[in-house]
């Protein structure tokens, strides 16, 4: 498992926040997939997750602190994902977006998403970049 939010192995900045701030929205803001297998597959996964926006807020799931870990086994990716609430109405959409964004990378053949609730998500898990993005949208965090 690589990098809990804020961990040393996680790419700084969360990747897609700048895009989110500029445009809002979701899939239309995804970057172009990379080519072959990257030198640091886990970092590439984190970057891709930085482009997957929360459906209700212009901030990525990575910067919201919803991604608790990423593991890459060959061409398969395992993502440990939590949600802001146990009955988050967007769970299905978020999982679908995570899966589709990662599968857009030609080197990824399979994505497994594990829902986790420990430790419970709180707003303390939002990254500094995520807080800036939320403030830009008029949301205090």
């Amino acid at each position, binding site marked *: 498992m690589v990098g809990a939010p804020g961990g040393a192995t996680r790419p700084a900045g969360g990747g897609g926040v700048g895009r989110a701030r500029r445009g809002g929205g979701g899939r239309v803001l995804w970057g172009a997939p990379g080519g072959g297998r990257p030198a640091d597959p886990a970092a590439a996964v984190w970057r891709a997750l930085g482009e997957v926006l929360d459906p209700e807020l212009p901030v990525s799931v990575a910067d919201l602190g919803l991604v608790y870990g990423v593991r890459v086994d060959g061409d398969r990716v395992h993502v440990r994902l939590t949600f802001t609430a146990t*009955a988050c109405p967007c769970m299905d959409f978020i999982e679908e977006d995570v899966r589709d964004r990662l599968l857009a990378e030609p080197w990824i053949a399979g994505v497994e998403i594990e829902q986790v609730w420990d430790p419970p998500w709180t707003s303390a898990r939002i990254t500094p970049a995520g807080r800036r993005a939320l403030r830009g949208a008029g949301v205090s965090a």
Partner: protein
Amino acid sequence: MSAGTFSPEVREALQRLILSLADTKRMLGIRYSDWLLGAPSIESGIATASMSQDEWGHARLLYAMLKDFGVDPVEIEHSRPPGAYCSAACLDEPFADWAAVVAGIVVVDGTLSLALEGFASGAYDAARRRIPKMLAEEAFHRDFGHAWIRRISAGTDEGRERLAAAVEPMLADAITCLLPDDEEAGLLAGAGLTAPARAARTRLARRLAEPLSGLGTAPATDPPLPADWISSRRRPAGEPAGDAVERARGDRNRALFVE
């Protein structure tokens, strides 16, 4: 510890405990949603929508634990007849008025949270991992319910009487169903899975003393098991109303089912 590490007898009791908690959460969510419109204020009605959403999510996480026991949670959530539900009996019918909604928040939701606290402190790993998030979400329910109790307590005699009338039977039923003091509860506490019933009931009495103090009544917090107690369902005889179960199962939306 996982479910497989317990004796068959304990495992069976644990499965029944989870189903009782999950079904009560689900029916409580339904009963909150009944009052989305018609509360004394629009804002209070909208609050029941949020609480309903939380209860639904908590129920789903609890049902998912049943996978550890080889049970298909989808089948459990969407296919059981009303007579198989293990929810607290006080939720079988809609709350009669807003006083009953407030009683439901403080008494039923409060007792559920206390039962969950004991479960989360026990030896079952899945409960230890999942329940803290539920309890964090429940903090708002508690604050909202207690604020309403204070408001009603400081109001008219009629309001206090209606609230007290709602609290007494609901509290007896919630304690009986959610903190039962029977042989099976002893088995679970003995296995380190829950708090002993007596200790949990004492804690509940202490916790409810202040919010209920303004009602001029001291409800009994140590009710005996009723004569029609069904241990396999952890509740007295009866079942939730059919329309509530149809909504809980999503009967009219099977063609749109996505799970």
